[in-house]
């Protein structure tokens, strides 16, 4: 165990986290330079494009240090968004230290700080790394000052490098060995291993990524997943190279994988503890949270012929995303589809993008909803996460919505802006706490529905990105809820219905009407777009019809060109949904569910 180091790299976006990871991988010889593809750890297209990591990844780097000893450095990459903050916390829980990367030209930025807070919460050793020192605009003295003043770290602890040019990488490896403590644990104690991720392999089933804290696991062992309460026989264990490297055992302190004939990735929960069936550990590792979907929306194919393709795509997608749940659903306006549960809005966007990109599907999403609770006159209690199932208002005696406790950490100068935002979002019971000078921790209780829409984006801009935000569900509280419908030329578009607080209804209704007005192309008829609560119209917009759309000339030489042009418009029309006589493009559905402040 003395020769193992478990660490993660954390950084503000574009400060060079992935490049540094690549350099460490390269220099330790895991990959031949000629096999090298930039940014090995960000596997998904979406991850590269958005510059965020969605899935955790891990790799073991063998390293012979200057002290002459061989070390195994386990690099665990972490996701970068609040929707996945729980996954981040589990990945960090598997580490003893982090490399905090700071761009020498940009200095300390928002996420530098937010990430530092996270690492501090996990009591990790922190090595500040100043990257991009090769750039002419690098300003190392300024960054050193920031490390001291803004991060409260000792600037003498820093290392400087250029990941791109491969400068200073050796020193970083040495620092990992010297300054990150080796894992503690007892190889002879009962097995306790933390699941920090899982991936699906079409040949082997679910591959668990875990960190062993105590004990040892070997092929053939009977293991128990404590929270899932399931027992499996281990088929293979090993550690991560660029591919999986099979080994006989995984012992205390090590990071690696377990394959145990688990068919569905959803049978494995991040944060769960693995122990032996025969000789279990006395208690599960701390910090487990069930990854429950909190945002629900329906997915429909634009062309109803694509329903089967969508069903297959969801089935495949689900194999690699344990947090995603779905079931059949149907809409009057949009036909057959699926009701899906997500961890948050980003998760929803990721799923939507991957379905479109990787499976070539054009889909429409309904307005996302949280799960509401209604007590009816006859005493029954119903949970509703789909506006289509909104109970008859005359039967409702009590309506409740889920509340969360939001925990926000930020430099204190942003406190005013954040408190204003929280109040606007119907926040209550605030608490303030100063963990260190200049840094404030704020908690608020808020309706989840207010948080899922655009809270995170506005929080980030309100703190100029310097704040960190996390939340947990606490309880249900009584709320004045109404069902808001959207009508296009008098026809209700059920996918656009939403359950909202009465005080929010007019604003939300008008916003939806305006978004639709912008996105629905003009047609041959006047289109009325209305927002209504029951039979009461609370907002409306109209789209005027086309007046002139014809080319002046169409003679012998124009016909082919003209046909091709109109053919394109015809195709575009096919990609729209017909609601009554109105063609509604996919973008209109998406626009309605976009946040309010863009």
């Amino acid at each position, binding site marked *: 165990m003395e020769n193992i180091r478990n660490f993660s790299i954390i950084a503000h976006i574009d400060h060079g986290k992935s490049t540094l990871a690549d350099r460490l991988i390269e220099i330790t010889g895991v990959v031949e330079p000629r096999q090298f593809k930039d940014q090995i750890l960000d596997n998904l297209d979406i991850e590269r494009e958005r510059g965020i990591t969605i899935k955790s990844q891990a790799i073991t780097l063998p390293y012979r240090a200057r002290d002459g000893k061989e070390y195994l450095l386990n690099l665990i990459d972490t996701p970068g968004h609040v929707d996945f903050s729980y996954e981040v916390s589990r990945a960090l829980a598997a580490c003893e230290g982090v490399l905090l990367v700071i761009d020498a030209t940009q200095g300390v930025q928002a996420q530098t700080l937010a990430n530092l807070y996270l690492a501090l919460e996990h009591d990790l050793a922190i090595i500040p790394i100043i990257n991009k020192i090769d750039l002419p605009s690098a300003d190392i003295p300024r960054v050193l000052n920031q490390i001291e003043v803004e991060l409260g770290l000792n600037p003498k602890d820093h290392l400087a490098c250029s990941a791109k040019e491969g400068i200073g990488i050796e020193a970083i490896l040495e620092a990992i060995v010297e300054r990150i403590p080796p894992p503690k644990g007892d190889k002879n104690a009962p097995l306790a291993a933390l699941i920090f991720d899982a991936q699906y392999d079409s040949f082997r089933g679910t591959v668990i990524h875990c960190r062993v804290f105590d004990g040892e696991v070997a092929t053939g062992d009977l293991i128990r997943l404590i929270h899932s309460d399931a027992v499996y026989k281990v088929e293979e264990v090993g550690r991560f190279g660029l591919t999986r490297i099979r080994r006989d055992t995984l012992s205390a302190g090590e990071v690696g994988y377990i394959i145990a004939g688990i068919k569905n990735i959803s049978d494995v929960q991040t944060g769960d503890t693995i122990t032996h069936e025969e000789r279990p550990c006395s208690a599960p590792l701390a910090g487990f949270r069930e990854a429950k979907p909190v945002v629900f929306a329906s997915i429909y194919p634009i062309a109803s012929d694509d329903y089967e393709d969508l069903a297959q795509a969801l089935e495949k997608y689900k194999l690699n995303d344990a947090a995603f749940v779905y079931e059949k659903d149907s809409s009057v306006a949009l036909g057959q589809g699926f009701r899906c549960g997500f961890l948050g809005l980003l998760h929803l966007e990721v799923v939507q993008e991957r379905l479109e990109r990787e499976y070539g599907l054009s889909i429409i999403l309904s307005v996302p909803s949280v799960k509401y609770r209604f007590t009816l006159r006859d005493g029954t209690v119903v949970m509703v996460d789909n506006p289509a199932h909104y109970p008859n208002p005359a039967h409702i005696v009590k309506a409740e919505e889920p509340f969360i406790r939001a925990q926000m950490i930020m430099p204190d100068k942003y406190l005013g802006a954040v408190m204003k935002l929280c109040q606007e979002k119907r926040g209550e019971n605030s608490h303030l706490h100063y963990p260190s000078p200049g840094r404030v921790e704020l908690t608020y209780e808020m309706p989840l529905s207010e948080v899922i829409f655009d809270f995170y984006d506005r929080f980030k801009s309100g703190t100029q990105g310097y704040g960190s935000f996390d939340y947990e569900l606490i309880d249900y509280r009584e709320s004045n809820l109404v069902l808001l419908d959207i009508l296009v030329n008098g026809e209700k578009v059920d996918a656009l219905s939403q359950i909202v607080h009465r005080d929010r209804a007019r604003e939300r209704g008008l916003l939806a009407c305006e978004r639709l007005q912008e996105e629905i192309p003009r047609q041959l008829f006047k289109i009325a777009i209305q927002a209504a609560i029951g039979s009461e119209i609370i907002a409306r917009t109209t789209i005027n019809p086309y007046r*002139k759309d014809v080319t002046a000339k169409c003679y012998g*030489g124009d016909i082919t060109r003209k046909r091709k042009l109109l053919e394109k418009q015809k195709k575009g029309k096919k990609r729209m949904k017909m609601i009554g*006589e109105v063609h509604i493009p996919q973008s209109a559905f998406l626009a309605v569910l976009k946040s309010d402040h863009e």
Partner: protein
Amino acid sequence: MSEAGLYIHIPFCARKCPYCHFYSITNLELMGPFIEGLVREMEMYRGAFPPFSTIYVGGGSPSLLPLPFIETMLNGVFRFFSLTRNPEVTVEVNPADGDRTWFKALAQLGVNRLIIGVQSFDDGDLAFLGRRHRAEDAVVAVKNAQEAGFVNIGIDLIYGLPQQSIEVWEDNLKQVINLAIPHVSCYELTLEEGTPLDERAKRGELNLPDEEMKWQFFQATDGFFSEHGFIHYEVSNFARDDAFYSRHNLHYWQRVPYLGLGPSAHSFDGHHRWWNTSSLTRYLRKTEKGVKPIEGKEEITREDAIFEEIFLGLRTRDGVNKELVRHSPLLESLLQEGYLIVDHNRLRPTPKGLALADRLAVIICPN
């Protein structure tokens, strides 16, 4: 009886107008070689088409052609192709070119219809459009043509110029009546990709009318001519009575086969459409070798054909066969809104429908 149309493209202009995207060059020395190439091209299509009932000489500026060249060209047509009885033979004329002797000679060669590129009867508009003639020239050209014995005369006009008012536009239309012209094409100014005018528009230099204003022009034009007893028989075309319809252009809209000769000309045999090279040099090289100067070709599928029938038909007052369009609540609404009417088993666009012919086609096409 099967018939076809013949189009001949004359790729020469004295100068290029900034709004025009048709192929032409200003080096007039190539006229002689061009006429030779043209006659060779005719020979290559001998017997390939049914008798021609219309011949249309367009461009470019056909009126730049000296008479002997026109004679050689028309003789070629008579020699290599058969014609129906009483073919319509049209030549496009620039108002700057039309003197009485030239018109008389044209008539003697068998030309029986003239299209005069007036564009506007306002000198300011003409300057903006970069035309080489003045309003007065247009009036003289029309009168000369009439004195030379031409009855079937059409003029082209353009509306929707920057800052143009409906009143100024209507002054143009009044001239049509004053000069007793039986056919007129009223084109909305169109920005064609790559033209100098398009460049100016992209730089934001032009204050062009918005869609509502364009509709006002369209409506005013339709109203004016219906008041004067003209028939609005196609989106941009009006005639005093059906005897003055452009028979040649009707071929295009009714999907009658046509042969296009000369650089950039398109042809259609009912199942294929092909087009010639848009380069006179290449055209001459190919025709000299006895090779057809074709640059591209496409096969028209059954589906394409139906779509063409719909979008071309909807440009005309004659409309489309009702059987081509599936009956639907949407169609019902289009009828109710007054975009279309049903008449003799045809769906005919109203003037309001003509203004939206392209959009209607996209909407009612069954596939």
